[in-house]
């Protein structure tokens, strides 16, 4: 495990300044405190403090039943709620050895990939907002991305009735089925999104200002990535081809044809390229899933009739999904009742943030913001 890096710049005579970034800060992506030690403009050491958003999810998992918890699971990674719920219900289904009908699996895939697009829209918008300022070009990209994200949220609103925290999954399948005419709307939205992604790339891809802020900044080497345990676009931007959808396919992902993007540079720009490709691959998967959507029931269990309805036999199991930020996992220990005995979340952002003390020292204060944005943490996942 490599040591946390503290860079000695030897300014000779300059005092070190300890500056606090957060927990209330426009670009800390949530409540996150970083105690930076600065020499001039250069960061020499980073001390990260988390826990400001702790809401006792793992305890809630022990007090709420299997019927109640999926609605709450969306609140861990609230930006990509579908994948969080999917982790929980997959874990329970693994322990209970439940079969999920094919139509439900395809609906889950559509929901997860639409959620990935929406989450990456938010990532791009907030990253440019941090780098460009609330009164500048960053705000422009932010509003464009939010405009597109709203279209996907409209799709989810038609499907489930809610825009951010869905309660779409349940043990054994999904709670809602696609309404009439929904797939036409999804297809139209996907075509529209593809054109808008072209616009974002035109605005940013070869933009000298953007390149100069992101190339060479926050380089994570492949070895460091694997040693610290990052996942998702961070590890794929550092040259390691690891995607849970390919490593351990869940929910019929093996039926779909998609490319897992890998870049070797390991800097913020590489992670940007990885996520932009993931945009387009998600659109491809959604189109394939809609084409192949089978008829059938959406749940292998009857509809929810009472709170203690689902009883899971004794056992334990771990399920992981490829969330927008990385590998989201849920570990359930069951003792045969309607509630888990123990539930543990593996938050993708929690492990991703562990890489910060290794890569931030040596950079300037402005780069800290760029690096935070490209790591893309959501503190619901970190603090749970």
């Amino acid at each position, binding site marked *: 495990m490599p040591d946390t890096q503290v860079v000695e710049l030897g300014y000779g005579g300059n005092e070190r300044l300890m500056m606090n970034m957060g927990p209330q800060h426009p670009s800390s992506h949530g409540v996150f405190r970083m105690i930076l030690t600065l020499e001039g403009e250069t960061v020499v050491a980073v001390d990260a403090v988390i826990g400001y958003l702790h809401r006792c999810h793992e305890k809630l998992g022990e007090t709420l039943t299997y019927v109640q918890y999926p609605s709450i699971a969306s609140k861990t990674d609230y930006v990509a709620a579908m994948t969080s719920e999917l982790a929980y219900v997959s874990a329970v289904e693994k322990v209970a050895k439940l079969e999920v009908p094919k139509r439900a699996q395809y609906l889950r895939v559509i929901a997860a990939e639409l959620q990935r697009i929406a989450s990456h829209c938010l990532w791009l918008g907030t990253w440019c*907002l*941090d780098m460009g300022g609330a*009164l500048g070009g960053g*705000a*422009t990209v932010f*509003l464009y991305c939010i405009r597109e994200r709203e279209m996907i949220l409209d799709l989810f609103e038609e499907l489930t009735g809610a825009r951010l925290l869905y309660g779409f999954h349940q043990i054994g399948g999904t709670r809602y089925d696609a309404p009439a005419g929904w797939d036409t709307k999804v297809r139209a939205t996907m075509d529209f999104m593809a054109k808008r992604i072209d616009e974002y790339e035109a605005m940013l891809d070869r933009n000298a200002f953007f390149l100069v802020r992101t190339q060479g900044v926050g380089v994570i080497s492949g070895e460091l990535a694997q040693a610290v345990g990052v996942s998702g676009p961070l590890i794929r931007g550092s040259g390691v081809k690891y995607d849970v959808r390919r490593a351990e396919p869940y929910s019929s992902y093996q039926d779909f044809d998609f490319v897992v993007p890998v870049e070797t540079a390991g800097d913020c720009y590489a992670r940007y390229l990885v996520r932009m490709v993931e945009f387009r691959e998600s659109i491809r998967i959604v189109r394939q899933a809609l084409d192949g959507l089978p008829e059938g029931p959406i749940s292998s269990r009857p509809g929810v009739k009472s709170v203690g309805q689902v009883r899971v036999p004794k056992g334990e199991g771990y399920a992981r999904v490829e969330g927008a930020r990385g590998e989201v996992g849920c570990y359930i220990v069951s003792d045969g009742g309607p509630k888990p005995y123990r539930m543990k979340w593996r938050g993708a952002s929690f492990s991703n943030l562990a890489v910060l003390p290794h890569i931030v020292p040596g950079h*300037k204060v402005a780069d800290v913001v760029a690096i935070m944005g490209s790591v893309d943490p959501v503190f619901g996942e970190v603090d749970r």
Partner: protein
Amino acid sequence: MTLPPVAWHAIEAFVVLNALLILVAYVTLLERKFAARMQSRIGPYYVGRPHGWLQPIADALKLMLKEDIVPTASDRWVYNLAPIVFLVPCLLIFATIPFAPELGVADLNIGVLFFLAVSSLEIVGLFMGGWGSNNKYALLSAMRAVNQIISYDLPFVFVALVPVLLAGSLQMSAIVAAQQGLWFVAYPVLGQLAFVLFLVATLAAENRVPFDILEAESELVAGFRVEYSGMKFALIQLGEYAHMLGTSFLGALLFLGGWSGPWPAWFGPIAFLLKAVGIFLLVTWVRWSFVRIRVDQILAISWKLLLPASIVLLLATGFVVALRGAGGA
């Protein structure tokens, strides 16, 4: 009834100052609406439906009614004086700008020099604000500001001297008179290059994105202004926008011909205003399109790119003027 000249000047100054304040207020509304349309939204809308006409007035009233908070650990005198020291030079530059051949508070024969010199004085107010706030963010921002503005004032001055050379005088009305036939921006290569460099230097000297590292909301949360609220904040905002407008007016005067053009004389001042607002909108358009760059990159651009380019441009202009003078008009 004839008043002594002092009284006339006082009245002119009063009128110009008031007109300026109203113009600055409504230019903020214009910027907000323009930026909003570029971002697929509408800007201020509720206050004074349907176009938000009363928004600047509402903002001014709100700021006037806010509580005046002075941090206990701040340097009292420096903190309280900083907004005034910041605002006064920004308003003073308008004294030298003539709005029509005989209309202007003081058409000095060293007009451009006075403008450039006084407009640089805002740095003092800026640094006072950053220091007096006793806040690490403010201090960091103030240090960056001094770095950036001083670095960019040099190419700014050199580029502003190009029209001066072409016109042969520092007096603003003389520069406009020299553009009766052809605006300086239309000069073959020199004019366009000088105009582009002027815009870049303006962006940096005004702390506009992509050079707004000093106020970087997402890093330094309003920079040197972070501890100011209420009327002091209003003064700082006023000063910033007045300075922005001032350099827009200067750009319109130096490069776009001021009030001259193919229209009757009474339309001149209005055309001048429109040109200045046009430059302002151009700068706004750039501002809302780009992310910002780091402070060391900003300084690199200034010292390695803009300064040599502006010096070369100035030398070339001198050369051209000398040749023109030697060969006749």
